[in-house]
């Protein structure tokens, strides 16, 4: 399975990343090597095998964990804004969208 330059650019766009022309060739090679390596998963017969997402949710507590819907504490607005690159008064400022 090989990946084209155009596909890489499309994935980069989806991932909101940008690569300079001179980075792209090395990147394409590494990406290609990784994809060739993971191809081997296709050899495995996974018919009737369910996927595992929460790996230790087994026998003892194979169910969703619920809690009462009670109002708890949350982070104050001021604390939420302390790390913002461009905080407004009670909001995050970003470049004009419209």
């Amino acid at each position, binding site marked *: 399975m090989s*990946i084209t330059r155009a596909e*890489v650019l499309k*994935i*980069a766009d*989806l*991932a*909101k*990343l*940008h*690569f300079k022309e001179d980075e792209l060739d090395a*990147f394409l090679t*590494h*990406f290609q*090597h*990784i*994809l060739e*390596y*993971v*191809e*081997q*998963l*296709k050899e*495995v017969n*996974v018919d009737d*095998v*369910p*996927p*595992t*997402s*929460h*790996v*230790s*949710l*087994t026998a*003892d*507590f194979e169910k969703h*964990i619920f*809690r009462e819907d009670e109002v708890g504490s949350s*982070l104050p607005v001021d*604390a*939420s804004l*302390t*790390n*913002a*690159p*461009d905080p407004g008064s009670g909001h*995050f400022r*970003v*470049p*004009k*969208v419209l």
Partner: protein
Amino acid sequence: MNLMDAHQIKNAVNSGKITAREVAETALRRIEAVDGKLSAFLSRDRERVLTRAEEIDRTIREHALPLAGVPVAVKDNICTLDLRTTCGSKMLENYTSPYNATVVDRLEHAGALVIGKTNCDEFAMGSSTENSAFGPTRNPYALERVSGGSSGGSAVAVAAEMAPLALGSETGGSVRQPASFCSVVGLKPTYGRISRYGLVAFASSLDCIAPVANNPKDIALLLSQIAGRDAHDSTSAPVAVPDYLAEMNKPVRGMRLGIPKEFFGEGLDPEVRSIIETGIRNAASLGCELMDVSLPHTQYAIADYYIIAPAEASSNLARYDGVRYGFRAQSPADLQDMYKRTRSEGFGPEVKRRIMVGTYALSSGYYEAYYGRAMRVRTLIKRDYDQAFERVDALLSPVSPTPAFKIGEKVSDPLSMYLSDIYTVTANLAGIPAMSVPCGFTGEGLPVGLQILANQFEEGTLLRLADAYMAAFPVSKPPLKI
């Protein structure tokens, strides 16, 4: 007072033989003396640590504390109110969390001293700390070699006697491999054993917080304080926390130890093999029975891991967009330009590579072929372990196919770096606990760790075997190169 043994320190502080302030000063002096050569720490705050130590000294006049005055080094992807949490990334270079991780709250409640934040590969993605935006952490046994990673700073903090305990994190071996490279003890717990609230997310179905120490008793002491259900982390397991120190007093005689043949194949360095084989014979001589076992899907583990982890990372790292926290690119033309330039300038090459692979694996038309399939293969890897643990109590294997490699040796070939995780990733995929314990040194003086794996929530079994093994076969360490 040395900084090797947490039990010794907390006993001395609780009994008034030494103050927490004196312990803190010793640790800070040690860090100032040796860390210039090692770069294990990214940040620390001398005044804050001393103030905190004085608070502990006041509290213990009222009552003893389980970790009284014990310095703990914390990996820089675990949130702390008092120190920056950079994740080894330019993206979070100036980020200070507005809350403490649950583990940090629990440590402080137990009287521990968070002595500083430790270096790691960017967002914990790597096996050497070379992916840190702030430079690599060096191996104290060979300064031109890597510390291992991603929790290299945490392993070196303990190995170089800057702190008796450290917290790292594990997604694919990030504590066991540096523990092996630096001759310390590292435990990757069962998935869900320790709350991850405040651990910066990398791959959510795999991530664990993982302790480092010089001996299994100290790991047990630390684990007892931080394990257990947390309402802030819905993936934390509602499973009772046993008394790990009591578990360790049970005998190891009669334990059945499995040797997985797939962990001794091609690519295993002959000297590492010979050290591990001696370790296995030694373990058997404790009265344990050795059995050959097979984990047939091990060969697919790296491919499986390098789909699952990047896929989840690509989703988790979408939050770094320059809006709410972290780095933002200068003078963006518009919102899209801000997102793209922020992420392209803020992330390093390995993080970008994994976001790209993950985005590809999750993209329309490929989801089932990559991520869906990988999660099914993961089930098969888990079943291999389920079957093995029907016959044996624990498994023994190498941690890493080689000892610590040279800084720069693998950076230009990401796949070769990935392959070095072959013996560690399966425990993360199967969610089982596993440890690295010091097993020996190569002729060149490089540490080699023995891996012990057990079934889910069997940390007590691991610690018991590790403790008996280390007590019977202590490794004599060459002097540190610092």
